[in-house]
């Protein structure tokens, strides 16, 4: 059978999107289906059936089914997971209710914390103890363990999480408990901490293992339902799921480690952004992805092609934008910030008598005042309309009319009059403030990583991203913005680019650089590679690659730096080479190094990767057209440079072509989004139809 197609399927809150990619021609077919509740797998299958009608041959000729889903994150937010029982070391059953003991809001004495996923009466202790060096201080009591599992079974527990002290160092007792479950309680689902997160720190390891246990059956049922339906339809190839870390994983592995899939949606857009920029021959570029929608803006950074990752991911926050108010999972995830800034963000006069924008959003209903659906609060979209950036007649390609008078009224009544500002000052205030909020958050985000946003190009997408990227770029002093074509389906492209991966971690060996045994480390890496490859065993191994890295730190510090290991033979490396590698990264991040301090190995990591027969976007074959043919008209819009309305030329995004240069002030309109280029800058169109804005970075206000 010919491998002609690949399908990407992304489940969102409202729509389930499908992209069918023709691997030969790179043509993409788009399908949208309403997301089905409570079982989203129904919508997936219905959508595929519809696609099948349009392309009858595709099921037989499809190479793979690539899938991203919000199922897992929603199950945790809505508390719809399994009834989980925890088995832990005697004395430690309350860790996940005690948390870190710190308040996430210094002054709010009534602040709420998430309820534990496993209530206390289902958290049970077994007699056993392993010490930090892995030696067994107290043998596991097998009979007691059996009795406890039986009791949990009696409480209708469906899924068991096992997390014992120092199991990352020696999993012997956890393995014994796993064997009991497999032998005597085969119907129970289980998650073992030394498999899910073999790392030091009992609280994080336990809570991550519990989260895995909480969603495991749900994911199993879901994946199995889709697979059996696909089979029924005649689909014979493999299904892969998108990980929070931006790789794809085979369905069987995903069922075992569902916590690694917790947020697979936004990652895809980021991968696509990285790809688009690299395509256009800007390989050295450092990228900030900027995805601004109706309620929030999301950003991540890509430094020299490497997506910035985090091992800390907080889910189900009690207060959405308050760090520390959610369940802190330790998983590999793209490090992404979410800011309460979108087209629907509401402008208001705060209690200090000053303008505030967001984080409250008018959402889609009632929406901005200009939607004329009963919204009375001025939003960012209303301001953008008043400022002339949006065309009331061409919103969503003209399918929705915007009411300028409503926007003006809301801004004047709620902002202009109370603050004694003119309409323009008030509208510009809202626009400028939301940009500022995003810029401020982005600066702190980059600062935490020792990065400077002015050294980055911004890739803007999402409904409001292209419009606000100019203002954001000015504030963070970024010199270049890249805006890919077709923001609406852009994210789904990431599915076809992401490699198939599996990540393995080990903290079993810790040593200082001086005392480290490099031959032993090589053995550890080999074992890890074998393990990682095992999880990808059903795959085409021709392109299997391993990348090794290690987390190192100065003795006494607690933050490790991940250093890619440049060799597949650790024994061949010298201590001096590694020390220099570490010092170099440390210097870049923190501006100094400590030559008098010892460096220690904390963790080793291996990622096994198999490349997909990747999407090969080709340069457009459309010949260049003249500027005038793409020019629709001109209209008055606000220039931040002259601080007055100027004539902005308005271009049709679908008629501009490679090689064209657009001088600001200009607006480029496509169906789902609008690009603004002020008069101090110009834009060009590259051969992949990305619009590239070059900014004048001198000064801003």
């Amino acid at each position, binding site marked *: 059978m010919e491998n002609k197609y690949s399908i990407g399927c992304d489940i969102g809150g409202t729509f389930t999107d499908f992209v069918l990619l023709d691997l030969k021609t790179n043509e993409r077919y788009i399908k949208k289906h309403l997301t089905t509740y409570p079982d989203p797998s129904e919508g997936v299958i219905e959508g595929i059936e519809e696609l099948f009608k349009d392309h009858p041959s595709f099921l037989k000729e499809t190479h793979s089914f690539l899938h991203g889903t919000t199922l897992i994150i929603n199950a945790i937010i809505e508390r719809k997971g399994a009834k989980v029982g925890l088995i832990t070391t*005697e*004395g*430690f*059953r*309350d860790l996940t209710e*005690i948390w*870190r*003991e*710190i*308040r996430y*809001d*210094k*002054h*709010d*004495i*009534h602040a*709420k*914390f998430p309820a534990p996923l496993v*209530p*206390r*009466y289902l958290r049970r202790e077994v007699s056993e103890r392993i*010490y930090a*060096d892995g030696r067994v*201080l107290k043998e596991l009591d097998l009979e007691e363990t059996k009795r406890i599992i039986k009791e949990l079974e009696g409480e209708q527990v469906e899924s068991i999480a096992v997390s014992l*002290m*120092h199991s990352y160092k020696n999993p012997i007792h956890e393995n014994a408990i796993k064997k009991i479950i497999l032998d005597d309680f085969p119907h129970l689902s289980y998650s073992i901490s030394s498999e899910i997160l073999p790392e*030091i*720190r*009992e*609280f994080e390891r336990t809570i991550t293992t519990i989260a895995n246990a909480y969603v495991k059956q749900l994911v199993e049922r879901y994946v199995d339902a889709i697979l059996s339906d696909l089979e029924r339809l005649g689909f014979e190839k493999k299904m892969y799921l998108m990980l929070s870390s931006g790789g794809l994983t085979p369905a069987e592995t995903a069922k075992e480690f569902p916590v690694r899939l917790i947020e697979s949606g936004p990652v895809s857009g980021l991968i696509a952004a990285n790809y688009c920029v690299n395509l256009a021959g800007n390989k050295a570029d450092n990228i900030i992805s900027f995805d601004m929608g109706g309620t929030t803006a999301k950003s991540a950074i890509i430094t020299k092609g490497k997506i910035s990752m985090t091992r800390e991911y907080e889910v189900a926050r009690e207060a959405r934008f308050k760090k520390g108010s959610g369940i802190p999972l330790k998983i590999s995830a793209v490090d992404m910030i979410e800011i309460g800034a979108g087209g629907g963000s509401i402008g208001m*006069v*705060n209690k*200090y*008598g*000053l*303008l505030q924008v967001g984080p409250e959003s008018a959402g889609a209903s009632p929406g901005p005042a200009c939607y004329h659906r009963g919204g009375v609060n001025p939003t960012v979209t209303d301001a953008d309309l008043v400022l002339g950036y949006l065309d009331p007649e061409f919103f969503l390609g003209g399918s929705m009319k915007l009411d300028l008078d409503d926007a003006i009224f809301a801004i004047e009544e709620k902002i202009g009059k109370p*603050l004694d500002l003119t309409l323009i*000052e008030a509208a510009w205030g809202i626009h*400028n*403030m939301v940009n500022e*909020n995003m810029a*401020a958050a982005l*600066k*702190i985000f980059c*600062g*935490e990583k020792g990065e400077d946003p002015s050294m980055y190009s911004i890739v803007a997408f999402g409904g409001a991203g292209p419009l606000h990227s100019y203002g954001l770029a000015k504030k963070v002093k970024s010199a270049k913005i890249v805006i890919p074509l077709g923001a609406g389906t852009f994210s789904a492209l990431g599915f076809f680019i992401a490699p198939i991966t599996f990540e393995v971690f080990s903290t079993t060996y*810790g040593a200082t650089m001086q005392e480290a045994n490099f031959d032993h480390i090589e053995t550890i890496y080999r074992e890890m590679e074998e393990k990682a490859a095992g999880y990808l065993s059903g795959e085409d191994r021709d392109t299997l690659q391993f990348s090794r890295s290690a987390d190192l730190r*100065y003795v*006494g*510090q*607690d*933050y490790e730096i991940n250093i890619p290991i440049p060799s597949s033979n650790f024994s061949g490396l010298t201590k001096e080479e590694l020390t220099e590698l570490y010092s170099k990264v440390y210097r870049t*991040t*923190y*501006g100094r190094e*400590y030559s008098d*301090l010892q460096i220690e190995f904390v963790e080793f990591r291996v990622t096994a990767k198999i490349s997909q027969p990747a999407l090969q976007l080709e340069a457009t074959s459309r010949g260049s057209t003249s500027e005038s043919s793409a020019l629709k008209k001109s209209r008055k819009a606000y220039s931040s440079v002259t*601080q007055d309305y100027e004539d902005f030329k308005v271009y049709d995004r679908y008629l501009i072509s490679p090689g064209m240069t657009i001088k600001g002030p200009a607006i480029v309109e496509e169906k789902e989004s609008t690009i603004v280029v002020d008069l101090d800058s110009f834009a060009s169109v590259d051969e992949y139809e990305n619009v590239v804005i070059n900014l004048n970075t001198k000064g*801003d*206000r």
Partner: protein
Amino acid sequence: MRKKLDPVITQILWNRLVGITDEASATLTRTSFSSIVRDAHDYANTIFTQQGDLLAANTRGTPGLSGGMTNVLRSAIKKYSIEGIYPDDIFITNDPWIATGHLNDITLGGPFFYNGKLIGFGLSTVHHMDIGGRMATTESRSVYEEGIQIPLCKLAEKGVISEMLLQMIGSNVRGSNMVIGDIRAQMSAINSMAIRTCELLSEYGLNDLDSVSREIISRSDKEMRNHIKEMPDGIYTAEMYVEHKEITKEGKEEDKPIKLQVAVEVKGDEIEIDFEGTSAPVAKAINVVYNFTYNYALFAIICLTCPDIPNNAGTVMSIPVKAPKGCILNCDFPAPVWSRTAIGHLVPELIFRALANAIPERVIAGSGSSPVWVEIMSGEEPKARKQFLVYHIFQGGLGAGATNDGQSCLSFPCNVSNDSMEVIEKDTSSIIFNKKELTCDSAGAGKYRGGFGQEISFSIMSDEYATKKPILFGARGGRFDFRVPGILGGLDAPKARMYLNGKNRRTGTDMLLYPGDTVDAFPQGGGGYGSPLERDLELVETDLRNGLISKDAAKNFYGVIIDEVSGKIDFNATKKNREILSKS
């Protein structure tokens, strides 16, 4: 460039200044060498006006520092005069009376120059892991025994760092790499604030921070006054006692509880807080300097009025705080002050209690986490034969509020996080934890109950791999004689306990631990709010099922009748029983 500060630009500048202190905190945290900064977030980074008024402070971290920081800056300006402060100067001090109340807190500060003109200051305070002296004990007889004192002086002048001073400090502390590393991290934080603030001025075409400072401070002042106006006028008082034993001339221990007393006068848009009537300082190292008292008094008012107000000089203008000179909340040099939290952390609770009837919906009951419980251990790691220093922080339960139970084991009023026990075991190879779990019946009952306290137990390893040397151990925290009070009909939480090898001990004195020794600590839960007879029975049932309250407690405090056969709550019988109980 337009210079007028409209309501848009003002808010942008304000957000940005706070953002600058947060960014500096990120730098500090990432480069720090101590768990106290990294995990416990015991630090503050602040921006001041050139006149010495607080303008912005980082959002995370612990309260209780910014008042002292203001005083450090004003003292530095006084000592050197504005003309004597040069670009790239860094001043430093840990003087408890000038700064934040004990020697472990080292404050650094430096000027911001823009176009050759002084426009403001950046300060950074960090609680350092060690400062020398007797380490973790309240037995010091004066501040001289508590560690190295760094007078207010310049650590750097015109960019030239006094390496001698750093060496001097390094030679006087345990873990000098850590302490000196953190001092350098503080310098980076100040530098980052200076650069960002100047960038901000240039971006907005401003020459200095004067106009924006005026706006920020006056608007914050106005906002705080608006909130105070909503409170009913009156003089509200409260007093509480803290356990204390004194040694008599005959060498006997005598109970001499310390009295803390407050009068909170709400008058229009001002609140005056006066600690008149509070006991005199004591011989033990639990005395509090005025700056520390002042900060926690303000903290309490902010919690009760507008928790989201940014911290700056304007926020606190309407809240004068008086503590008579020579009382334990305003002690004189050279009183020993190492464990100032033992008394100072009770200030918010005292103020909450005074205002309980005036604003019942805002206050919470007493918290088992006040004062903070810390265990400090120093010894030799047996494998690498290196000194270790463990700073182990854990908490009791938070007091209940008008509509919610208290959170179990939550830091208050300071805000510090716990550490991984696995990491402590790994780093010491000597300590093993036996238990960390919630304690049944440790919270005060009420319509809303307090958060639960915990039991935390550890031993010194005694097998053949274990250390042969004793470990120096000291602890602070706990209320052993007086219970954590409930409020508005809520019940008190039981007292704290601590045991060494099963024998009753107290915090405050340091001791040597030997292989096989076990220390078991029980921080209390929080107090309850409202009558327990009004508590929702389903909530009682949940606590029962989770083993967090005993059947006896359900019966005695909550008036619950449990069906002997099913073991469940008999709802009808309980209702009748509660009616009878509430009449009596």
